[in-house]
């Protein structure tokens, strides 16, 4: 009886064993770190190619995309997208666009339409129009790069941000601003004997900077829309500007008004100074992370200049760097995850990043020259810094992993003290 039942069971099981086992395979890292894309020249005589070139350069420098050789493009922007044409090229995304001139209230405007196509699903994943004045062709292109980048990666692009810096001629120093890619360079101050690194207000419309006149140190706030400036503070002690506080209403500065340099908050409306450090050591170079609500700065309290962190109210001070004997000019990433600073290694200044908790120290430069004054892009993926590797001080840009280092400031111009706008 039992045997019969068992026999039936076995028979039934063998009949039913039709479900094949599925084998699972693990792949833990992609074969390539870049998505292959094609940016076809936009349709529209004079501007189409220019705009496509700017977008190519933006997307390529992000490090996330590999541009397909232009000679192999199989369609033009005015031809319909057919995924079958692109599949053999193993390209994942195709970007096309058209430019036309339109008039609004007798003003000449350019209207750009862009489309992003996904080759494997044969779908258009983005279709958007942009309208702008003719004279801001570069800005419109950067905005398109941002839209494409954000659509694909889900991250915020920084292609429309700006960099402010100091330019030196034989006897004077000036503040300049330029686009993140080194284009559209403009001078915004008339010049002083000494000008130190400018810092952007969180809205990207103002710059605060330190100047020296007749042996007095002052802090100016310049409105970039009007170029009017306002002196917030001037005294015989050294007053050096650091980052804005995230609310935009206060400015972090270091001042030697009590003898040794300390860090203060300067209220822009009331001009009132609140001390955040109070010691006989030197505390300088404050930089703030808006997200972490913490301030990174330099102190020599343990005999050599080292990087420290404190809360936005001056509490909870702690040392971050324990290797190297000369660590200066720190900059906090917006997110507060990383700090970039300059460290003397084998007799030269080099750019180094470190996690907020003091781990993961990484040297990004190892070039013969001195590499100093690093500053993060708002998304923390790029760093602008000063280097004298060309024989004179110039601004360089690098990706966060140290790759793609290139000159950003105009050729044969002494440029230093870079600072990256948040917007």
């Amino acid at each position, binding site marked *: 009886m039992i045997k019969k039942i068992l026999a039936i*069971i076995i028979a039934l099981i063998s009949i039913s064993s039709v*479900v094949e086992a599925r084998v*699972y395979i693990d792949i833990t890292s*992609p*074969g390539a770190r870049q998505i292959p894309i094609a940016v076809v020249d936009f349709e529209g005589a004079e501007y189409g190619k220019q705009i496509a070139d700017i977008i190519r350069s933006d997307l390529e420098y992000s490090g996330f995309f590999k541009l397909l050789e232009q000679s192999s493009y199989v369609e033009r922007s005015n031809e319909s997208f057919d995924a079958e044409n692109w599949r053999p090229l193993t390209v994942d995304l195709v970007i096309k666009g058209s430019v036309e001139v339109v008039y609004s209230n007798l003003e000449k405007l350019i209207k750009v339409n862009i489309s992003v196509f996904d080759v*494997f699903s044969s779908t*258009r994943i983005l279709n958007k129009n942009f309208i*702008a004045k003719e004279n801001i062709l570069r800005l419109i292109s950067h905005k398109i790069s941002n839209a494409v980048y954000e*659509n694909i990666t889900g991250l915020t692009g920084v292609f429309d941000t700006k960099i402010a810096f100091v330019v030196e001629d034989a006897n004077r120093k000036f503040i300049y601003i330029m686009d993140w890619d080194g284009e559209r360079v403009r001078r915004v101050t008339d010049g002083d004997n000494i000008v130190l690194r400018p810092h952007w207000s969180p809205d990207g419309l103002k710059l605060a900077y330190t100047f020296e006149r007749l042996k007095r140190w002052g802090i100016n706030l310049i409105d970039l829309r009007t170029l009017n400036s306002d002196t917030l503070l001037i005294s015989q002690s050294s007053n050096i500007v650091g980052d804005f506080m995230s609310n935009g209403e206060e400015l972090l500065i270091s001042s030697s008004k009590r003898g040794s340099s300390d860090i203060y908050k300067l209220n822009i409306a009331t001009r009132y100074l609140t001390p955040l450090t109070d010691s006989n050591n030197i505390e300088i170079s404050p930089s703030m992370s808006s997200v972490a609500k913490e301030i990174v700065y330099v102190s020599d309290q343990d005999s050599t200049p080292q990087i420290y962190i404190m809360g936005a109210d001056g509490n909870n001070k702690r040392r971050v760097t324990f290797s190297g004997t000369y660590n200066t000019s720190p900059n906090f990433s917006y997110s507060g995850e990383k700090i970039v600073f300059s460290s003397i290694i084998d007799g030269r200044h080099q750019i180094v990043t470190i996690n907020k908790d003091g781990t993961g120290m990484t040297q990004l430069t190892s070039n013969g020259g001195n590499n100093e004054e690093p500053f993060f892009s708002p998304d923390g993926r790029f760093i602008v810094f000063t280097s004298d590797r060309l024989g004179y001080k110039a601004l360089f840009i690098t990706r966060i992993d140290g790759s793609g280092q290139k000159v950003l400031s105009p050729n044969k111009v002494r440029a230093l003290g870079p600072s990256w706008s948040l917007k």
Partner: protein
Amino acid sequence: MKENGLNIAVAVSLLFHSIIVIVFNIAIKRNVQYLDTVTYTVDIITPSVMSYPKAKESEIMPAPIVKEPEQKIIQPIETKPEIKKIVQPKPEVEKIEDKIPFDAISPSERISELKESLKRKNKRSAELDESTKIDKIQKIRSLASIRTNKSATETDLIKQSDNPPSGAPMTAEQGDRYYEKVRDYVMGFWSYPDLGKKSMLTIITFAVDINGNISKIKIEKSSGDSLYDAQAKQAVLKSNPLPKPPSEVEIGIRFGQ
């Protein structure tokens, strides 16, 4: 006597449970086949599979709308979507101004801009209505295609059980070697940038026939990030055909990082 009674009870219980397992098994097997076929069809013809973050509904192409009713039922698997024929939703417009302009904008321009944005708002809500309608039509249509495909699937099943797949089942060693090859192959076609996103996992399942042709591609588990899912799926698509397996196999790939 007591012991015999117990044995019978155990046997009956075993029989009972195994019947449940078997019925379940068959049900799943049918179900999987059934679903797979449907997914296969839909995957290839429905563009909305590859939605990206921030790609608003109005930006994603609606599925091809076939006007003739008879075509609703007969949907050849090889049909590739033809983008050109589809009616476009109006693209979003972004007006760009220099934040730091050295020449000011005239107030009249601002007013026209405001009007524009209002118009846009109205248009967008109309588009949304339209897209939900399209979604509904699509759902109905895919149901119809399931029904027509069902009968075919059933006959296919019978045929398959009559003629088991050629090629003997793989030995463990053969399997290890083959799956390693597949891993290297698919990895070579997988590109995903280091966007700083951690603990991502997408599982893509598919079947490989005796010639290495891939079918029944499915996202078994989504990472929640559409770019990550899309790039994983593309890696599989680009790997087609894979090296020939010793016998037909079903593979799941866990794309992790």
